[in-house]
């Protein structure tokens, strides 16, 4: 068994003696006999690290859908982007990995400054002045944005575009059970949200729309902004941060809050976590900002220093009056994103977005050339697109796996409107040869 406890039996004995105790069990005298576990845990005994690794490798081997085995055309917020060696090498440094939340700024300038740089980058991406130090994932960022918007407007109604990731919508619904928010889903028409007239029922406090949306389509954010202007709602844009390399920022479109899934910036697919909730907002809302915020200040010698700030917002101080309960967040992923964005730089972000756009266009043409495959919507797309298939999408995904591809995401009936919809994402890592082979395999799979 592997043990991470240093104490030898002699040491334990001498410590017990110091405490005047006869056994380790006596340490637990405060635990009433009645509730104590009277048996050993029914778990296997510990094993050595090599055996642990063998067990975990066994699980790993049992996954067929690995990016090193199936060429990945799946997206939906989680993308197979290039992660250069430099990103994990730096973000994986043990000073970042094994530190706690920076409670003592004097010995935590490393994490604090990295997060400050991250906040700057996210704010610039979003076109907004403030970004927090991260939330759990895209969906939790959307939930927090809804909470912020409802608190800011005092209106409990949240209009959610049907183009928002279905899992985000499910989370919004789950969490609304506690907050009492009233959610209204606004349907898509030909791939983009068909906003209702403002006087149609209760006015929204928050309007939430994707850019591009879940189906990859570019929404008319001008219309969404106009709706918000008309109704007094806050505009929350769920933006793909890679697409933001080419698209007008949420801020430029007039968003009050921009949220997003930060996984594309250096975080492995990892079956969905840990990911990174991006969150940026207008200055007016900074005191309602959920999660941590790092600010710049000085130390007693006047040297530049960083520290977590506006702490009075947070749950540990405001307690039941806090508008967010977030404590532990996804700092390491934020540091990872800062490094990955440092690697990309101004030109690299444009490059990766451009390459995605070109590969997506190339793939879309090839896929739509397959017999029986039809477009899902006519709206312009950037780095992801949906198609209708002549065969159940789940079946196609299985068949394509045998051909060496993770074909995409089979759209649920709710999203696809009963049809056999497949959502296909094409990153900068996909080569023309891979795309051609994909189309060929798809033709067989739907035949």
């Amino acid at each position, binding site marked *: 068994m592997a043990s991470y406890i240093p104490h030898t039996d002699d040491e334990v004995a001498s410590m017990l003696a110091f405490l005047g105790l006869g056994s380790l069990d006596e340490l637990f005298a405060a635990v009433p006999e009645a509730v104590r576990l009277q048996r050993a845990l029914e778990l296997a005994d510990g094993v050595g690290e090599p055996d642990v690794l063998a067990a975990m490798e066994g699980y790993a081997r049992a996954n067929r859908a690995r990016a090193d085995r199936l060429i990945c055309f799946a997206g939906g917020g989680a993308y197979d982007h290039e992660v250069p060696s430099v990103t994990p090498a730096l973000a994986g440094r043990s000073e970042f990995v094994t530190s706690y939340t920076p409670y003592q700024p004097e010995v935590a300038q490393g994490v604090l400054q990295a997060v400050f740089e991250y906040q700057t980058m996210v704010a610039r991406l979003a076109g907004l002045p403030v970004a927090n130090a991260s939330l759990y994932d895209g969906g939790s960022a959307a939930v927090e944005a809804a909470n912020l918007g409802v608190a800011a407007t005092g209106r409990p109604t949240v209009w959610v575009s049907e183009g928002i990731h279905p899992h985000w919508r499910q989370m919004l619904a789950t969490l609304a059970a506690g907050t009492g928010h009233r959610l209204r889903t606004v349907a898509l028409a030909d791939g983009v949200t068909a906003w209702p007239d403002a006087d149609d029922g209760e006015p929204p406090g928050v309007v939430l729309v994707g850019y591009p949306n879940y189906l990859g389509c570019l929404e008319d954010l001008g219309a969404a902004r106009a709706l918000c202007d008309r109704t007094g709602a806050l505009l929350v844009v769920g933006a793909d941060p890679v697409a933001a390399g080419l698209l007008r920022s949420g801020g430029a479109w007039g968003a009050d809050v921009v949220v997003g899934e930060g996984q594309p910036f250096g975080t492995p697919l990892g079956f969905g976590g840990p990911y990174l909730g991006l969150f940026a907002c207008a200055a007016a809302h900074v005191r309602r900002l959920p999660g941590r915020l790092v600010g710049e200040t000085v130390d007693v010698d006047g040297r530049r220093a960083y520290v977590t700030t506006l702490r009075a917002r947070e749950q540990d101080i405001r307690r039941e009056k806090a508008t967010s309960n977030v404590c532990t967040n996804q700092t390491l992923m934020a540091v990872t994103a800062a490094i990955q964005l440092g690697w990309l730089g101004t030109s690299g972000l444009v490059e990766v977005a451009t390459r995605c756009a070109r590969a997506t266009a190339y793939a879309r043409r090839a896929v739509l050339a397959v017999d029986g495959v039809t477009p899902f919507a006519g709206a312009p797309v950037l780095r992801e697109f949906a198609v209708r298939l002549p065969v159940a999408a789940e079946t196609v995904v299985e068949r394509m796996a045998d051909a060496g591809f993770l074909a995409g995401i*089979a759209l649920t009936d709710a999203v696809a409107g009963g049809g056999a919809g497949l959502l296909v994402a094409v990153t900068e890592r996909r080569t023309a040869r891979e795309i051609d082979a994909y189309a060929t395999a798809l033709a067989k799979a739907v035949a």
Partner: protein
Amino acid sequence: MPATAPATASGGAPGGRAASAPLLGREEEPTLFELSHPGRRAWSFRTTGVPEVDLAELVPAEHRRAAPVELAEVSERDLVAHATRLAHRQFAVDLGAYPLGSCTMKYNPKVCDTVAALPGLAGVHPAAPASLTQGWLGLLVELEEVLCEITGMAGATLQPAAGAAGELTGLLLMRAYHESRGSVRTKVIIPDSAHGTNPASVTLGGYQAVTVPSDGRGCVDMAALAAVLDEDVAGIMLTNPNTLGLFEEDIAAIADAVHRVGGLLYYDGANLNAILGVVRPGDMGFDIVHMNLHKTFATPHGGGGPGAGPVAVSERLMPFLPGPRPARVDGGGDEPAYRWVTPARSIGRVHTWHGNTLVLARALAYLLATGGDGLRRVAQIAVLNANWLRRRLAGTYDVPFDRSCMHEVVLSARTLKRDHGVRAVDVAKRLLEEGFHAPTVSFPLIVDEALMVEPTETESPQTLEALAAALERIAAEAVAGGHDALAAYPKGTPVRRVDEARAARTLIPTFDARG
């Protein structure tokens, strides 16, 4: 032994103390934006052969941004140097002891890094169907089973991404349970020693938080509890051992009382490390338990996250668990097979995907290595270490509740403050200079000038000795020199005491907000 190492009774050296000395200049590290120079780059991509179509053909003009997002433009060399230098400005468990109370900053085994990097785990897309991700589903099911045995519960959701997310999930389960019985309840009881996430989660769960005070022993005041218990109470949230490091000895009575009014017991598992294999929340009468895998099960804290906050529940709450959840299929084949199921009255999804899965994999690896036998020893030694420190320091600092503690001990500097003007924060900052991370100083709120020390089981007796000696030295300095003797510390850290008020007053949340 180095001349400067404290002579310890046990003759050891300061193994858990960061004895590193300054390497380089004392300058600030510029931000990446200041290191930026237009036109520089680090990136390169695959040669793909994809035609280089003009962007104008791909993105309608009204959607295209006018100018690129301005990021830093640096060489890979400068990026590496920048991040490496930042790392050299950061304390971490890997550098020395981190006795931060309530945070369980134990050593994180490196084998878990290997696990989290396995291509067969790290390279899996979360939307891939169950048929292609049997390994992941099996892993998650095994972890759930292990966590249920440890907590004594019937089932668990692995979705919550951290402790607070677990709390909120638990409260929504509580709500769903009561609603399913047609019962409308409005209040959740919380002791005044509770962590701030507890009341915040209660509010987000749509309940009113009702605080009950602690009694003279540091435990829930039973009379006060009885006074607030009625049919409006949906449940109570407890940390046991509580945040004072004390075991709520009346737990059976509390459970009884709460259950009697139809309420549920919620266990905040942040302090689970203390009781592994000794007593289980389920056996204490708890209905809902969240765990902080980033504390108890040695997944590293990453400077603030990621964590993982699975929630385990008793049988009657199973139908409400978030979904979809991985489940074993009683199939016909030889190999076990797994699929996703959504419980009948699931509260729904609480994570975009399946939880912080790579953190979950780390935790399972740690659990397999430690095993049932090892977990009990973890609790024993964690508690032994805390009690040794309590006893050792009892003459030097106040111990507000001087009885056997569990995994952590709450000291107080209130006498030092009264007599010498030295506050807990001064002690903490002075300790940084000694190469230890500071204890928790701002929590629990109910103790004046608290110094909450949690050594964890991975620190050796030699490290405890060095830590105690340092705290004794500091107390002696405080007594001899008063506030002035300590105010200038820390001196040798990358920055010295930081102006927190100014940070909040003149908010500079980004590089662009600088004057």
